[in-house]
Protein backbone atom coordinates (compact mmCIF):
# COMPACT_ATOMS: atom_id res chain seq x y z
CA UNK A 1 0.00 0.00 0.00
CA UNK A 2 1.39 3.40 -0.99
CA UNK A 3 0.76 6.40 1.22
CA UNK A 4 1.71 9.78 -0.18
CA UNK A 5 2.36 12.30 2.58
CA UNK A 6 1.82 15.83 1.32
CA UNK A 7 4.04 18.40 2.99
CA UNK A 8 3.19 21.91 4.16
CA UNK A 9 4.82 24.58 6.30
CA UNK A 10 7.83 23.45 8.32
CA UNK A 11 7.44 19.87 7.08
CA UNK A 12 8.47 21.04 3.59
CA UNK A 13 12.03 20.81 4.94
CA UNK A 14 11.66 17.01 5.00
CA UNK A 15 12.06 16.76 1.21
CA UNK A 16 12.92 18.70 -1.95
CA UNK A 17 9.54 17.59 -3.29
CA UNK A 18 6.10 18.53 -1.98
CA UNK A 19 5.56 15.01 -0.68
CA UNK A 20 7.08 11.82 0.73
CA UNK A 21 6.03 8.35 -0.36
CA UNK A 22 5.75 5.47 2.10
CA UNK A 23 5.24 1.80 1.25
CA UNK A 24 3.37 0.13 4.09
CA UNK A 25 2.53 -3.60 4.15
CA UNK A 26 -0.71 -3.51 6.13
CA UNK A 27 -3.39 -1.10 7.26
CA UNK A 28 -2.01 1.43 9.67
CA UNK A 29 -3.35 3.94 12.16
CA UNK A 30 -2.32 7.59 12.09
CA UNK A 31 -0.62 6.99 15.44
CA UNK A 32 1.62 4.32 13.88
CA UNK A 33 2.05 6.25 10.63
CA UNK A 34 3.33 9.18 12.69
CA UNK A 35 6.02 6.83 14.04
CA UNK A 36 6.86 5.66 10.50
CA UNK A 37 7.50 9.27 9.52
CA UNK A 38 9.70 9.79 12.58
CA UNK A 39 11.64 6.63 11.68
CA UNK A 40 12.14 7.93 8.13
CA UNK A 41 13.41 11.25 9.45
CA UNK A 42 15.79 9.53 11.87
CA UNK A 43 17.29 7.58 8.97
CA UNK A 44 17.59 10.54 6.64
CA UNK A 45 18.30 13.43 8.99
CA UNK A 46 19.98 11.58 11.89
CA UNK A 47 18.86 12.98 15.24
CA UNK A 48 17.08 16.12 14.07
CA UNK A 49 14.97 16.80 17.17
CA UNK A 50 13.21 19.77 15.59
CA UNK A 51 11.88 17.56 12.77
CA UNK A 52 10.72 14.92 15.26
CA UNK A 53 8.89 17.57 17.25
CA UNK A 54 7.16 18.87 14.12
CA UNK A 55 5.75 15.38 13.45
CA UNK A 56 4.75 14.85 17.07
CA UNK A 57 2.79 18.12 17.16
CA UNK A 58 1.23 17.89 13.68
CA UNK A 59 -2.33 17.07 12.74
CA UNK A 60 -3.18 14.99 9.67
CA UNK A 61 -5.80 15.50 7.00
CA UNK A 62 -7.48 13.29 4.37
CA UNK A 63 -7.95 14.07 0.68
CA UNK A 64 -11.52 15.19 1.41
CA UNK A 65 -10.17 17.84 3.79
CA UNK A 66 -11.10 16.29 7.11
CA UNK A 67 -8.73 16.54 10.05
CA UNK A 68 -8.33 13.03 11.44
CA UNK A 69 -7.31 11.74 14.85
CA UNK A 70 -4.69 9.16 15.82
CA UNK A 71 -7.19 6.26 15.65
CA UNK A 72 -8.00 6.81 11.96
CA UNK A 73 -6.92 3.77 9.91
CA UNK A 74 -5.35 4.03 6.47
CA UNK A 75 -6.47 0.91 4.61
CA UNK A 76 -5.69 1.66 0.92
CA UNK A 77 -3.44 3.75 -1.31
CA UNK A 78 -4.11 7.24 -0.10
CA UNK A 79 -2.87 10.81 0.11
CA UNK A 80 -2.50 12.12 3.64
CA UNK A 81 -1.51 15.69 4.42
CA UNK A 82 0.60 16.64 7.40
CA UNK A 83 -0.53 19.84 9.09
CA UNK A 84 2.29 21.23 11.25
CA UNK A 85 1.43 23.82 13.93
CA UNK A 86 -0.14 26.82 12.18
CA UNK A 87 0.39 30.56 12.43
CA UNK A 88 -1.28 32.63 9.75
CA UNK A 89 -2.63 36.15 9.79
Amino acid at each position, binding site marked *: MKIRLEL*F*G*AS*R*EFSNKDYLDFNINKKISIKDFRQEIINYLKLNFKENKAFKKIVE*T*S*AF*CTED*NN*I*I*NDNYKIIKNQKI*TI*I*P*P*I*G*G*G
Partner: protein
Amino acid sequence: MLHAKIIDTKKEKIKISTAESFISSTKFGASIFFSGTVRDINENKKVTGITYDSHDELVLKSFKEIYYEADNKLNIKDKVVFIEHAKGYLDLGEISIVIAVACKHRDQAYILSRYIIEEIKKRSPIWKKEHYENENSEWLKGNPIQPN
Protein backbone atom coordinates in the same frame (compact mmCIF):
# COMPACT_ATOMS: atom_id res chain seq x y z
CA MET B 1 -22.60 37.17 2.17
CA LEU B 2 -19.01 35.97 2.18
CA HIS B 3 -16.01 36.52 -0.06
CA ALA B 4 -13.10 34.20 0.81
CA LYS B 5 -9.95 33.87 -1.29
CA ILE B 6 -6.29 32.90 -1.14
CA ILE B 7 -4.17 35.40 -3.06
CA ASP B 8 -1.10 34.02 -4.84
CA THR B 9 1.40 36.88 -4.47
CA LYS B 10 3.15 35.92 -7.72
CA LYS B 11 -0.03 36.86 -9.59
CA GLU B 12 -1.77 39.58 -7.55
CA LYS B 13 -1.79 41.66 -4.37
CA ILE B 14 -4.39 42.08 -1.66
CA LYS B 15 -6.16 45.43 -2.00
CA ILE B 16 -8.29 47.06 0.69
CA SER B 17 -10.22 48.83 -2.07
CA THR B 18 -11.54 45.45 -3.28
CA ALA B 19 -12.80 44.73 0.23
CA GLU B 20 -14.38 48.17 0.45
CA SER B 21 -16.32 47.60 -2.78
CA PHE B 22 -17.49 44.15 -1.65
CA ILE B 23 -18.89 45.13 1.76
CA SER B 24 -20.35 48.49 0.74
CA SER B 25 -24.13 48.54 1.34
CA THR B 26 -26.73 50.96 2.63
CA LYS B 27 -28.18 48.09 4.71
CA PHE B 28 -25.25 48.29 7.12
CA GLY B 29 -24.21 51.19 9.32
CA ALA B 30 -20.87 49.86 10.60
CA SER B 31 -17.81 48.64 8.74
CA ILE B 32 -14.47 47.45 10.13
CA PHE B 33 -11.34 46.84 8.07
CA PHE B 34 -8.57 44.77 9.61
CA SER B 35 -5.29 44.28 7.77
CA GLY B 36 -2.21 42.32 8.81
CA THR B 37 1.14 43.42 7.38
CA VAL B 38 4.72 42.15 7.46
CA ARG B 39 6.64 43.92 10.24
CA ASP B 40 10.36 44.50 10.47
CA ILE B 41 11.32 42.96 13.84
CA ASN B 42 10.25 39.66 15.39
CA GLU B 43 11.84 38.31 18.57
CA ASN B 44 14.77 40.72 18.18
CA LYS B 45 15.52 39.54 14.64
CA LYS B 46 15.49 41.92 11.68
CA VAL B 47 12.92 40.56 9.25
CA THR B 48 13.21 41.30 5.52
CA GLY B 49 10.11 39.43 4.36
CA ILE B 50 7.81 36.46 4.93
CA THR B 51 6.86 33.52 2.75
CA TYR B 52 3.33 32.29 3.46
CA ASP B 53 2.33 28.70 2.80
CA SER B 54 -1.30 27.59 2.76
CA HIS B 55 -3.41 24.46 2.41
CA ASP B 56 -5.85 26.35 0.23
CA GLU B 57 -8.84 23.99 0.39
CA LEU B 58 -8.70 23.62 4.17
CA VAL B 59 -8.17 27.34 4.65
CA LEU B 60 -11.21 28.23 2.56
CA LYS B 61 -13.23 25.58 4.38
CA SER B 62 -12.22 27.11 7.72
CA PHE B 63 -13.15 30.63 6.53
CA LYS B 64 -16.63 29.40 5.59
CA GLU B 65 -17.07 27.58 8.90
CA ILE B 66 -16.03 30.66 10.86
CA TYR B 67 -18.45 32.81 8.85
CA TYR B 68 -21.42 30.49 9.44
CA GLU B 69 -20.56 29.99 13.12
CA ALA B 70 -21.06 33.70 13.66
CA ASP B 71 -24.79 33.19 13.01
CA ASN B 72 -25.23 31.06 16.11
CA LYS B 73 -22.26 31.73 18.38
CA LEU B 74 -22.35 35.51 18.02
CA ASN B 75 -25.98 35.84 16.89
CA ILE B 76 -24.88 38.06 14.00
CA LYS B 77 -26.99 36.98 11.05
CA ASP B 78 -27.08 40.12 8.90
CA LYS B 79 -23.51 40.69 7.76
CA VAL B 80 -21.11 40.92 4.87
CA VAL B 81 -17.63 39.45 5.31
CA PHE B 82 -14.57 39.73 3.07
CA ILE B 83 -11.50 37.62 3.87
CA GLU B 84 -8.36 37.37 1.73
CA HIS B 85 -5.05 35.84 2.82
CA ALA B 86 -1.76 35.93 0.94
CA LYS B 87 0.21 32.88 -0.18
CA GLY B 88 3.83 33.31 -1.31
CA TYR B 89 6.50 35.91 -0.59
CA LEU B 90 5.73 39.34 0.85
CA ASP B 91 8.11 42.25 1.53
CA LEU B 92 8.03 44.39 4.65
CA GLY B 93 4.83 46.41 4.92
CA GLU B 94 2.88 44.36 2.42
CA ILE B 95 -0.57 43.07 3.35
CA SER B 96 -0.86 39.41 4.35
CA ILE B 97 -4.55 39.42 5.33
CA VAL B 98 -7.60 41.61 5.03
CA ILE B 99 -10.78 41.02 6.98
CA ALA B 100 -13.55 43.45 6.23
CA VAL B 101 -16.96 43.20 7.86
CA ALA B 102 -20.15 45.17 7.58
CA CYS B 103 -22.97 44.86 10.13
CA LYS B 104 -25.98 46.90 11.17
CA HIS B 105 -24.32 48.23 14.34
CA ARG B 106 -20.75 48.93 15.51
CA ASP B 107 -20.80 46.48 18.46
CA GLN B 108 -21.49 43.60 16.09
CA ALA B 109 -18.84 44.74 13.60
CA TYR B 110 -16.09 44.96 16.23
CA ILE B 111 -17.02 41.60 17.76
CA LEU B 112 -17.26 39.84 14.39
CA SER B 113 -13.96 41.22 13.07
CA ARG B 114 -12.09 40.18 16.22
CA TYR B 115 -13.75 36.74 16.24
CA ILE B 116 -12.73 36.04 12.65
CA ILE B 117 -9.03 36.89 13.05
CA GLU B 118 -8.71 34.98 16.34
CA GLU B 119 -10.37 31.87 14.84
CA ILE B 120 -8.19 32.05 11.73
CA LYS B 121 -5.12 32.12 13.98
CA LYS B 122 -6.38 28.97 15.76
CA ARG B 123 -7.81 26.97 12.86
CA SER B 124 -6.69 27.97 9.36
CA PRO B 125 -3.70 25.99 8.02
CA ILE B 126 -1.39 28.82 7.06
CA TRP B 127 2.32 28.93 7.84
CA LYS B 128 4.95 31.67 7.90
CA LYS B 129 8.60 31.40 6.96
CA GLU B 130 10.44 34.52 8.07
CA HIS B 131 13.47 35.78 6.15
CA TYR B 132 16.15 37.72 8.04
CA GLU B 133 18.79 40.33 7.25
CA ASN B 134 21.59 37.76 7.57
CA GLU B 135 19.95 35.72 4.77
CA ASN B 136 18.79 32.98 7.17
CA SER B 137 15.16 31.99 7.23
CA GLU B 138 12.97 30.09 9.67
CA TRP B 139 9.48 28.58 9.82
CA LEU B 140 7.65 30.08 12.81
CA LYS B 141 6.59 27.61 15.48
CA GLY B 142 2.82 28.13 15.42
CA ASN B 143 0.02 26.38 17.28
CA PRO B 144 -1.05 22.74 16.79
CA ILE B 145 -4.47 22.09 15.21
CA GLN B 146 -6.70 19.71 17.16
CA PRO B 147 -9.00 17.20 15.41
CA ASN B 148 -12.72 17.86 16.01
